[in-house]
């Protein structure tokens, strides 16, 4: 029987073929027990093969935790069974795809996954429910059309992203695509990028004021810039470093106002070398570049990078691509035309108003294809490839808002294009509006998911789409972003209305919740990070949105944007407005609160320890935790008011209060004294690792220990913001610690 390896032997780039061969061999070695599971885990991650929920062989089916007996005992990583379905992430640099690649992507989803392609918030494409044995064939078939999965996960340079409008944007300084392409190619498998403690993300923007490439939240964010020197316009980049979302978001720091284009690749390499050499390796939660820069300070980091740059051995690849940069451009499929009085199909006008962007090249437009939850079927992808062949040629991009855009569409073609998109179920309006909700996979497939981000996103999308025609214009343009946990894969920090999943135990039953995050900014390359306001049961989030948006419409002053409205109204008032929504009815009154959106299983039952004594202790502890919640919130209010010292003081106090709640569950008379609290918390809960590996509680405890050991001199909003964020996460972790202790019956 033929194999893909034989069939594609002459088609694949030899280096890529060799890389895939090596991985196939590693699979064989692992199966023979000749490769350690940890080593294999990292090697598969570097090929984009990720774990998925329930791959440890356990799943709660709504009644009990069921053991899933897969045929093989073998593992593909610690606590990760070989036969368990996994996820395959596929890098799509700058989101660029052509129709032939789209065909192959569609075929592979159909043959090896579940017939669905998922566009991620970093322009990748993901398949779910993949068997690890199928991955080499997937990689070969992708490789044959110029796509790689190499370094799509793991501690490596991830997909290089860029603004999906690059090259056609009316406000860009220049087209960043050739630079993004060159950087992606140069850093792929680069020896200097193989020894990171964590991942490294790069993004390119064409302009500063739009959301564009979201440069502010990347390890390396580059914004196109020009400078006139000796009468000549020189290209370069405003370079930012050390940004990132994650549990604790960091604003990127300005590294250089103007990095000349010929220095882009050498400086990327130099930064990678410094990160690899000095970045944290053991403590994973402190290993991103943002922590290194926070530790060294931007000036020291800059000095180190500049020194590193000086000693780099010259590499011809640094500049050889620059010869083609000025001439780089896409050839439109058709001549430019205008939409002059053509007959418009039903639904066209609504779609046109939100999904069409006029390019800087007259007569051409970018058409957004809205993908609900970032999903499309293999059939749709193949049909969309044909649509692209007919209307836009090779110029297709995925976006960080989990959509696809077709560029260089001749304007006259829009009615026909719309008809075709509607025919294949991709003609929904609302791109880039409140209806176009972004969500990470959450509890659907992610091992870390706490609440159902996709379930909530689907529900909100349905509700908002139904009333979109009646929505006020100011509300229409807000953005909702949802993460299933605190890790920010749904980018909730930079949304107008952000949500991240959490949970609460009420009367010994778990209830899915979301933290409401306000104050984030999508524009200005992800210009500001929001903070959690209040924890609300998942089933009441639609009411949260109604209340906040109604009030915004009612009370906003002329031309007041949402961020300013939030600031003016004040978080205290907004929280008060939502307070009644935090209440959860008893299970007997409304059991729907005890299951998540789109999932009829009860969120959790059965496993927990019960008993009146435990109930009393927990009630007391929950009271203390509520006090910690209040303190974090008050810290936020001081932060918003510019009182950083008090923001820090209360954030720290909140952590102590939360820690004390756990300590008092074991030692009711424990004194409220900082040294005792930190010491006792370390001994009783940190050293004993009550959270285990599945929960991030241990890492959050470090925030309290660090703050206690060295009270910082908090001078900037950035510093205070981080402390408040850390405090919030620690309190959340203590809530989870409580649940764990309750379940274990260790009170």
């Amino acid at each position, binding site marked *: 029987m*033929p194999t893909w390896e034989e069939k594609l032997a002459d088609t694949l780039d030899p280096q890529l073929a060799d890389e895939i061969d090596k991985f196939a061999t590693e699979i064989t070695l692992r199966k023979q027990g000749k490769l350690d599971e940890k080593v294999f885990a990292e090697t598969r991650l570097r090929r984009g093969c990720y774990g998925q929920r329930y791959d440890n062989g356990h799943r709660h089916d709504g009644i009990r935790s069921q053991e899933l007996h897969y045929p093989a005992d073998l593992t593909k990583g610690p606590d990760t069974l070989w036969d368990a379905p996994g996820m395959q992430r596929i890098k799509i640099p700058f989101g660029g795809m052509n129709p032939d690649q789209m065909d192959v992507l569609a075929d592979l989803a159909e*043959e090896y996954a579940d017939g669905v392609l998922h566009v991620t918030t970093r322009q990748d494409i993901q398949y779910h429910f993949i068997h690890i044995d199928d991955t080499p064939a997937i990689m070969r078939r992708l490789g044959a059309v110029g796509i790689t999965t190499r370094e799509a996960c793991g501690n490596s340079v991830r997909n290089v992203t860029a603004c999906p409008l690059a090259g056609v944007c009316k406000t860009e300084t220049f087209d960043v695509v050739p630079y993004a392409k060159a950087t992606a190619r140069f850093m792929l498998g680069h020896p200097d990028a193989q020894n990171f403690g964590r991942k490294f993300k790069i993004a390119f923007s064409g302009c500063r004021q739009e959301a564009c490439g979201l440069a502010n939240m990347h390890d390396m964010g580059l914004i196109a810039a020009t400078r006139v020197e000796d009468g000549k316009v020189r290209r370069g980049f405003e370079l930012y470093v050390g940004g990132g979302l994650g549990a604790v978001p960091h604003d990127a720091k300005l590294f250089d106002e103007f990095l000349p284009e010929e220095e882009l690749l050498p400086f990327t390499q130099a930064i990678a070398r410094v990160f690899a050499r000095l970045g944290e390796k053991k403590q994973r939660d402190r290993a991103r570049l943002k922590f290194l820069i926070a530790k060294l300070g931007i000036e020291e980091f800059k000095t180190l990078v500049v020194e590193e740059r000086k000693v780099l051995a010259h590499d011809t690849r640094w500049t050889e691509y620059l010869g083609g940069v000025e001439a780089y451009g896409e050839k439109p499929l058709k001549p430019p035309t205008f939409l002059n009085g053509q007959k418009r199909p039903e639904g066209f006008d609504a779609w046109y108003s939100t999904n069409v962007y006029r390019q800087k090249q007259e007569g051409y437009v970018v058409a957004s294809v809205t993908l609900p939850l970032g999903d499309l079927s293999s059939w749709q992808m193949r049909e969309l490839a044909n649509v692209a062949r007919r209307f836009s040629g090779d110029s297709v991009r995925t976006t960080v808002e989990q959509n696809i855009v077709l560029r260089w569409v001749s304007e006259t073609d829009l009615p026909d294009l719309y008809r075709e998109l509607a025919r294949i179920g991709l003609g929904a309006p609302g791109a880039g509006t409140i209806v176009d909700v972004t969500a990470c996979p959450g509890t659907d497939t992610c091992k870390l998911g706490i609440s159902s981000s996709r379930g909530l996103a689907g529900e909100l999308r349905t509700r908002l789409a139904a009333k979109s025609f009646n929505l006020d214009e100011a509300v229409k343009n807000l953005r909702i972003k949802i993460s299933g946990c605190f890790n920010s894969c749904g980018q909730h920090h930079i949304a107008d209305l952000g949500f991240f999943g959490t949970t609460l135990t009420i009367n010994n039953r778990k209830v899915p919740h979301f933290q409401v995050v306000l104050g984030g900014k999508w524009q200005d390359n992800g210009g500001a990070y929001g903070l959690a306001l209040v924890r609300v049961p998942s089933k009441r989030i639609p009411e949260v949105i109604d209340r906040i948006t109604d009030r915004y419409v009612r009370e906003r002053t002329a031309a007041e944007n949402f961020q300013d409205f939030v600031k003016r109204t004040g978080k205290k008032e907004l929280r008060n407005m939502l307070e009644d929504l935090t209440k959860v009815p008893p299970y007997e009154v409304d059991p729907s609160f005890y299951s998540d959106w789109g999932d009829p299983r009860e969120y959790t039952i059965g496993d927990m320890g019960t008993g009146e004594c435990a109930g009393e202790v927990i009630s007391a502890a929950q009271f203390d935790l509520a006090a910690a919640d209040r303190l974090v919130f008050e810290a936020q209010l001081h932060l918003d008011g510019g009182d950083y010292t008090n923001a820090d003081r209360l954030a720290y106090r909140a952590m102590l209060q939360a820690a004390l709640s756990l300590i008092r569950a074991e030692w009711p008379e424990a004194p409220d004294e900082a040294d005792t609290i930190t010491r006792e918390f370390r001994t009783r809960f940190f050293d004993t690792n009550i959270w285990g590996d599945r929960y991030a509680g241990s890492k959050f405890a470090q925030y309290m220990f660090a703050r206690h050991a060295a009270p910082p001199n908090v001078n900037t909003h950035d510093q205070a913001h981080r402390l408040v964020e850390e405090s919030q996460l620690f309190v959340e972790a203590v809530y989870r610690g409580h649940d764990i202790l309750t379940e274990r019956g260790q009170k």
Partner: protein
Amino acid sequence: MELHRFGIKLFAAEPADIRVKDFVPVFHSWIQRQAVEGHLLIDVHDYGHIQNGPGILLVAHEGNFCTDMAEGKLGLAYFRKQPAGASVESHLDSALKAARQAASLLEQEAVFEGRLRFRKDELLVIANDRLLAPNDAATFATLQSPLTKVFGTGAKLLHASTNPKDRLTVRVTGNPLS
């Protein structure tokens, strides 16, 4: 390895006034009791928001079950992932058995109140492997023998699409399930 990734689509008999969302709790309950023989049932996903996608998906290690709206008609599809047996016929037969078992279970589900019935006079067989079963006349000819062995000599086999990009799909009529 020989061709084993077969898909089977069974069509619901009309009129089938069924809400696709009702399959979600049904599939979850199947996991609770591991209801499908020879399958490790793992998870349920709602892809109802996608056109011509898997609808409501029940993931199993051996193969996936899903509602299917291809050709605009509600149906149940099963896609085998793991080999079952030693020949193309045995793989095909195994896929058919799984699809029929699932269809039978669905017909008995109380939530559908007897309104869901699957047709016995027509089904689709999909060879879900573009390497071992390219969509061409030669492959169709090769598959005629195993298809006839599984469905009987009375079954009529029609090559459903000649588009080389499609998976090889055979429409089986002539009461293949009776």
